[in-house]
């Protein structure tokens, strides 16, 4: 089995290290995104960022019965998420003086109902939603601030009900302290500069520290912690953290179930400039952020709808391969499937 160490390392190098080196460059977004303010971009993309966060915090573990051995393996997993209708819309920010009828009279026609002079926000689709509703605005004066308060259009969604997650390839290392470490590392070229993703995930069996095997029988309990970092020198600064408890038990020989409760979070920002910025392109925008500060970057706040997930799954060992699949209830219900190849155990 030890002969497999070299090929395993080669596979890791091939799959995990697509290293690209570039000179520093700001992220830019193309002109079709010029209609977004930072707040609206954050709301529009939040379900997609939730899918990404859930992907990162999936396939963190399988069974909790970590043994007192060294183990080196490679886990490959795929997943998919069901998008709930509650994530199809967000409260889009309206231009500041909409609702002030001395500046502009506004109206929107939504499902046959006419709404007038809304202020603050209005419901619009996220990237997973459907058609957006324009807000028509009649400026009340031909000059002064009124002339900027023209009609507003919004981005539409793509009617997505199922979203595949990011496939996960990770190095799995078992330590005789009944500890399992998982490592993920990837660099990608993004807009002329390398973006680096890494994750360090820890699973530690707990039950052997306490005299509770009489109660647990063939079950095991472990704690898990995870940290993810996604960085691009200019533009992307995202971190994610997860923590939870998981346990497992044997159904048949080599056939086990596992379950978990996990807390997870993501934070950070994505900052991008408008491509080929020309003030004349945004002079008509009713949004001050776009009209007056269009040369400043758009800052998307990275957040997730998901804070907790409850998970249940099955695992089957066949030789040095462990097939595992689980279903989790989270803000986007998620199912995952993967294979862990335990190349070396000693």
């Amino acid at each position: 089995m030890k002969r497999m160490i070299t090929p395993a390392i080669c596979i890791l190098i091939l799959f995990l290290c697509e290293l690209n080196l570039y000179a520093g460059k700001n992220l830019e977004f193309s002109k079709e995104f010029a209609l977004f303010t930072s707040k609206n971009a954050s709301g529009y993309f939040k379900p997609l960022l939730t899918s990404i966060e859930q992907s990162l915090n999936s396939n963190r573990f399988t069974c909790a019965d970590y043994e007192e051995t060294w183990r080196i393996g490679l886990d490959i997993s795929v997943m998919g998420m069901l998008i709930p209708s509650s994530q199809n819309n967000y409260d889009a920010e309206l231009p500041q003086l909409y609702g002030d009828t001395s500046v502009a009279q506004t109206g929107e026609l939504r499902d046959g109902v006419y709404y007038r002079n809304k202020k603050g926000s209005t419901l619009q689709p996220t990237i997973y939603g459907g058609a957006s509703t324009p807000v028509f605005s009649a400026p009340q004066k031909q000059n002064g601030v009124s002339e900027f308060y023209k009609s507003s259009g919004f981005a539409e969604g793509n009617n997505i009900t199922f979203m595949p997650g990011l496939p996960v390839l990770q190095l799995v290392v078992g330590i005789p302290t009944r500890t399992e470490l998982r490592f993920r590392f990837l660099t990608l070229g993004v807009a002329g500069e390398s973006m680096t993703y890494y994750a360090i995930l820890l699973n530690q069996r707990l039950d052997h520290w306490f005299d509770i095997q009489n109660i647990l029988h063939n079950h095991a309990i472990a704690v898990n912690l995870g940290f993810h970092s996604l960085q691009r020198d200019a533009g992307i600064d995202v971190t994610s953290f997860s923590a939870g408890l998981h346990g497992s038990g044997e159904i048949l020989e080599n056939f086990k179930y596992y379950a978990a409760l996990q807390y997870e979070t993501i934070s950070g920002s994505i900052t991008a400039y408008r491509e080929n910025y020309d003030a004349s392109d945004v002079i008509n925008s009713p949004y001050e952020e776009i009209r007056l500060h269009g040369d400043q970057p758009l800052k998307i706040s990275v957040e997730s709808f998901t804070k907790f997930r409850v998970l249940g799954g099955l695992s089957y060992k066949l030789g040095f391969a462990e097939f595992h699949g689980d279903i989790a209830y989270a803000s986007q219900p998620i199912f995952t499937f993967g294979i862990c190849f335990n190349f070396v155990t000693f």
Partner: protein
Amino acid sequence: MKKYYKYYLILVAVIAPVFISGCYTDTIDNLSEFTLQVPITVPMFQRGNSDTTFSNENLNKYAEYTNNKERVKRLHLYQSSFWLDSIAPFNSSEVFQKIEYYFIIDSVQYLIARFNNLSVSSFFKIPQIYQVPDDIAEQVSAALLQNEVFRTMLVTTRTPGNNTNYSLIQSSLVMSLRMDVKL
């Protein structure tokens, strides 16, 4: 039965990634297109006592369109809105029996907004909105992709007995266009 478990598992292991990768491809295809709504405002001026106003338009006049035109795959007229900016003489209680906007392209007229029995006070600097029927929207959309030059026509129908001599009717027509952009 038990001895077949491993074969079932291997089968699932092979089929599941194929299934999921198929879904993955479909979704990536979906996300590679982006639809935004762009309101295009067409000013309409009518001088002299006429019930019909024309405006010659070219989509290339509008930055919202030209900024994205190279990647536009589809244009779709979604809603249209209009309001009066100015009318002389001004009488807020005056009622128009019918106000219609037509979109004219390649000599074909499409009705893109119609309002009945509107008093001046109800649409003087107040947007009235019309949901363009799907069949009209599809025809206008198909024509716009072929030809960026079009005309708009405003037709006002007065109530019987209204003989007011309007020296000016200035209005705004806003067409909300859905643009599918290939990223």
